[in-house]
């Protein structure tokens, strides 16, 4: 935890400095580049917090696509901003008030990294612990569809809220003899993919991900609507 904390602090401090740079520097190209650096720093921070998928995405998006977008825009516009007054006091006041209010709200939160926080003992863990079966077509919820397996194995018999549960599952989805033994028509899938982020993303919250795809598609269509040159042929 401690080395983590040290690196975390250093990276966050750097990120704050770079963020101030993004806002204050006059050259827009420099601001864009600093923005890319900020994204890479964020990717490092998230890597440090073990959010590997998020770090990967931030590196690809923040440092990659966003930079392409911004540089592409700068090709059309000018490269420098006008000189503006050093500090915009009403904005500073708003920001300080909003920020203090947000910090005020963090006071009653569970401690950072506290494993007994509701978010770590709540609904997701029951899902990942495979304590939740699917709902059948009559709307009946078959909770804990692995109950048959729980009887077979003592290891599964554990308190409701432990995370992560001690459990094992076949690496190979197909041809597993156990599948037939407890196969309920609406069973949970036999074991998650090792990357639980992907299984949450594509299965439990697959519906959100579909709209995420739709959001990207919308952005693409908006670009086409707004920027595509008229076709010359009649």
């Amino acid at each position, binding site marked *: 935890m401690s080395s983590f904390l040290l690196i975390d602090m250093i990276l966050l401090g750097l990120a704050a400095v770079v963020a101030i740079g993004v806002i204050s520097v006059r050259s827009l190209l420099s601001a864009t580049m600093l923005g890319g650096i900020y994204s890479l720093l964020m990717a490092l921070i998230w890597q440090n917090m073990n959010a590997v998928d998020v770090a990967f995405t931030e590196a690809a998006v923040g440092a990659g696509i966003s930079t392409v977008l911004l540089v592409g825009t700068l090709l059309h516009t000018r490269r420098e901003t006008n000189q503006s007054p050093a500090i915009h006091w009403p904005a500073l006041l708003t920001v300080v008030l909003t920020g203090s209010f947000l910090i005020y*709200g963090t006071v009653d939160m569970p401690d950072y990294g506290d494993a007994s926080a*509701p*978010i*770590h003992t709540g609904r997701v863990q029951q899902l990942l612990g495979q304590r939740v079966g699917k709902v059948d077509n009559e709307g009946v919820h078959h909770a804990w569809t692995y109950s048959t397996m729980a009887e077979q194995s003592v290891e599964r018999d554990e308190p409701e809220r432990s995370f992560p549960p001690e459990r094992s599952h076949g690496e190979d989805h197909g041809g597993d003899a156990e599948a037939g033994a407890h196969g309920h028509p609406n069973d949970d899938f036999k074991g998650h993919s090792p990357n639980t982020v992907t299984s949450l993303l594509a299965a439990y919250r697959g519906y959100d991900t579909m709209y995420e795809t739709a*959001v990207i598609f919308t952005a693409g*269509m908006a670009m086409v609507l707004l920027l595509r040159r008229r076709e010359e042929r009649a």
Partner: protein
Amino acid sequence: MSFIDFNLPVLLVIVPLLGGVLSVVVGSIVGSRKDLAWGWALAVSWVTLALVIRMLLAVVAAPEGFVVYNLGSWPGPWGIEYRVDHLNAFVLLVVAGIGAATTLYARHSVADEIPDDRHHAFYCVWLLAIAGLLGITVTGDTFNVYVLLEISSLTSYALIAMGKGRDRRALLASLRYLILGTIGASFILVGIGYLLMLTGTLNMADMHERLIALPDFAENRTVLVAFAFLLVGLSVKMALFPLHMWLPGAYTHAPSAVSALLASTATKVGVYMAFRFMYTIFGRHYSIDVLPGHSVLLLCAALAVLVPNLTAIRQTNVKRLLAYSSVGQIGYMVMGFALANEAGMTGSIVHLFNHAAMKGGMFLAVGAVVYRLGRCHVNDFTGLGKRMPWTMGAFSIGGLGLVGFPLTAGFVSKWFLVKGCIEAGLWPLVVVVLIGSLLAVIYTWKLLERIWFTEPPESTADLREAPPTMLISTWALILTSVYFGVHASFTVGMAQKAAAFLLETTQ
């Protein structure tokens, strides 16, 4: 149970989504065909309306008063859950109904305002906007609300910016909406994050149960900040008075069909979300009794009724006038639900429906004027009643509805609002509602006098009536509002059930 009935809640969102995407795929294969794009969008929007009506009937028939659908068959609090009760179903009807009417209208208007080669993309974004609004309304999962909110916002930005062909200010209005809208959505995201931190769940009903189970729920500072940020974020989305700055520009400079669609649906869905967050997640007790948020909302609502209506009187652009009037009407809706009694909430929900129909119809009528004249300055309306009697007839009836004239829909909702104010013992608010109506009389009369009691200038001698599809959809909305002004039992019945359900099922 048939396939459609079983999957009804998700189908009504998926149909416009898939319809929109297919529009682009087909368009890029067969090349751009204006009428194909429009016809397809029309078919999809009417199928959606049919599904929504079926949904409404299913909800009314449901013994518990709501219908649940589990996406991916993952059960309620764990996966994403759709939960449709009377309130959702009613708002769904508003969104899908306006969507169907404005799509019918869009044919000439869009052909006039949007370049020929991008009609497929335009109708794609159009349908996605409808899908996003329906999706926000139907879902019972907070993060799903955020994602769909962003779909509806991104599509709105693109649609509003398409007014650039006629007026470059559309671009500024759109960018301004984008910046404010993104800040609003980020505030909502912060609020959801704070609640997730405390409860460990994203499902609205589950979140409510876990929140009220917290030992120090009423004093918890995290809950307070979450509540405040959600409310501010939602206020931006529904354009509640001090945070309405994006709305007038956006609705004024957008293409006519887009103005009508967004004016009658987007802010209404924002109001609906505020209902949901306040009553379903935080509960009546916390939102109304514990926090001063309730009086802050009432104050904003009262100001929203007074200030924008005053601003509307000074406007010289009719679309901008209607936009300011919309901000004023949002005040009535917010006032109704912040009263937290059944009469007030009924008034609010009924007004949501009535205002969507009336204001939608009026925006469509102004759109017809823009289609024929190319602009909509107040001076352009001089004697227009003699040149375009049908369009102006619809416009005038809508205007009377805004005022709250008896026998129009506006009267019914204001009646309930005043009743709610009296029940709550808030006499100053009754005065505010009356002054608001008086201000509406002033700007409506200013227009009506010009339309009907002045001689048309010679320059408009060859002006013809609007095309039939435009007239049909305009009159459909206006007649709806008149019909439900006279026979208010359906709308009021639905609204009363929804209000009672919200007040009873949460604490």
